[in-house]
């Protein structure tokens, strides 16, 4: 017995001392990598933006052009999030519950926006809905709606880019739902709407919120598609990201840093909430 414990102890010390050294150096590499790549740049922007104090930052944010850009960014992202939540939920439901010709293709198309560069997305939308194109001209003349170089184009571009987020967040949870509960509710006389609201929806709320917040966070920072689709019209179709670009190009460092800080703060808060929601989701799954 003593030999056994001895050999075990020897193996243990031999096996753990070397990996311990390795583990520490790997941890150091990982943390350094993240610090250099992510944390230092993020801190630099706060340092630069707060150089002149919080009052100056507030002044820069509330300048009419900047304020309008921020408001536009937030409301277009909010409108997109609402539409995306409804349609994403519906798409996930259709993909999980129904089989029909083209089902696999539809499922694959959901991921398409992840593969296409957002700048290319912008080009695609301009080619379809642009004022010089057939469809765009028709919409403009017959219905008086302009999409390109206007806020609707921003919402459309955001919808395209963030389409997979809600679908892919809801889909796996929907797959695991126990359908006998729905059957039981139906037997007890519940209508489709009641079943949907009282049986199917509750377990989906958490993944739905995760997907929706993720798409909102992604939308706040979107640039490539928006700069093509919305152009750069201050006080009309200029979003926060495009405003920052303008400020950088005109060497308005205070303005660029101030709006960047607001955007980074929003992004960080949303990411923390999403992280928290995902951990709750994992706990519920276990």
């Amino acid at each position: 017995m003593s030999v056994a414990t001895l050999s075990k102890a020897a193996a243990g010390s031999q096996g753990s001392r070397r990996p311990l050294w390795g583990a520490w150096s790997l941890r150091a590499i990982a943390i350094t990598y993240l610090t250099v790549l992510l944390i230092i740049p993020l801190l630099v922007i706060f340092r630069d933006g707060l150089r002149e104090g919080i009052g100056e930052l507030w002044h820069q944010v509330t300048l009419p052009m900047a304020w309008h850009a921020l408001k536009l960014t937030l409301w277009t992202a909010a409108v997109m999030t609402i539409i995306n939540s409804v349609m994403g939920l519906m798409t996930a439901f259709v993909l999980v519950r129904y089989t029909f010709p083209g089902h696999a293709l539809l499922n694959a198309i959901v991921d398409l926006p992840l593969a296409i560069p957002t700048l290319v997305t912008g080009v695609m939308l301009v080619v379809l809905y642009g004022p010089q194109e057939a469809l765009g001209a028709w919409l403009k003349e017959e219905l008086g709606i302009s999409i390109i170089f206007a806020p609707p184009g921003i919402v459309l571009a955001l919808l395209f880019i963030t389409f997979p987020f809600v679908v892919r967040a809801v889909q796996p949870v929907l797959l695991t739902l126990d359908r006998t509960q729905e059957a039981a509710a139906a037997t007890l006389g519940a209508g489709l709407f009641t079943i949907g609201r009282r049986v199917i929806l509750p377990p989906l709320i958490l993944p739905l919120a995760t997907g929706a917040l993720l798409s909102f966070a992604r939308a706040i920072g979107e640039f490539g598609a928006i700069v093509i689709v919305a152009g750069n019209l201050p006080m009309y179709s200029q979003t926060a990201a495009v405003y920052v670009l303008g400020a950088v190009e005109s060497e308005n460092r205070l303005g660029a840093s101030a709006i960047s800080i607001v955007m980074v703060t929003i992004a960080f808060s949303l990411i923390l909430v999403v992280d928290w929601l995902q951990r709750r989701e994992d706990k519920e799954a276990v």
Partner: protein
Amino acid sequence: MTTSALRNPSLSKPLKSAGAPVSRKRVWVRYALITMVVSYIGILIIAPLARLLFGAFEQGLAPILESLSDPNVLYAFWLTLWISVLTVVIHAIFGTILAWVLVRQRFPGRKLLNALIDMPFAVSPVVVGYMLLLLFGRNGFLYPLLSALNIQVAFALPGMVLATLFVTLPFMVRELIPVLEAFGIQQEQAAATLGASGLQTFRFVTLPAIRWGFIYGVTLTFARALGEFGAILVIGGGIKGRTETATLFIYRALDERQYVGAYSAAIVLGIFSLILVVSSELLRRRGGES
């Protein structure tokens, strides 16, 4: 409803009257939902994609090839490819280490680091470029040091690679974390007990187990790097023939109203990313089956 109830007298009446309308309604709901989803995806995704593809091929292949054979365009695509390859290689090494440390080790601040990984996903690319400009630009914090060492980061390749690294950080790590968690530590421990070095364990035990996540992470990183635009625009400046990548060329071409050039480059870039992601999806499916 009444006729079907009459034909099936064996079934108890209350159940029938409750069940039949629901199932008929369900068929109706089913078609309505499928139609709505298919038309939504059709309008939002398929129509713009189809329009771009058909629009560019309207005049045949000749104008496309002509506009793409311009030396500046070729250089732009080459630069995009070069930046993407560098990004992928760096993330393949350090992203894997980062994922491994986050999964296998416990230390204070781990959860915060884990949440921080997703930051690039939400931070605007323009802001990313601007942050790097604040660090490495002419009035940047590190500019004196860099100019003493004679290294140019801003408006040069290193800055553009850094920007792309920032933007693509989540992809590799987020693909690897779940696979590493699922793999567990037993086999790694067994290998270590049998005397394998850390590197050997990784090479022969861990890497084969996580290879599909690794491949998928590489593809996503590559695809995202190919399409990066905002961050590279700010830190690189889009100088024609020097720091102009494929996306920056498209942007300039649109600005200069060279629509054929812009659309052709957009199609090539889009198709390239599509092939990447589709092929890795197919690979993964094959890997999942075996």
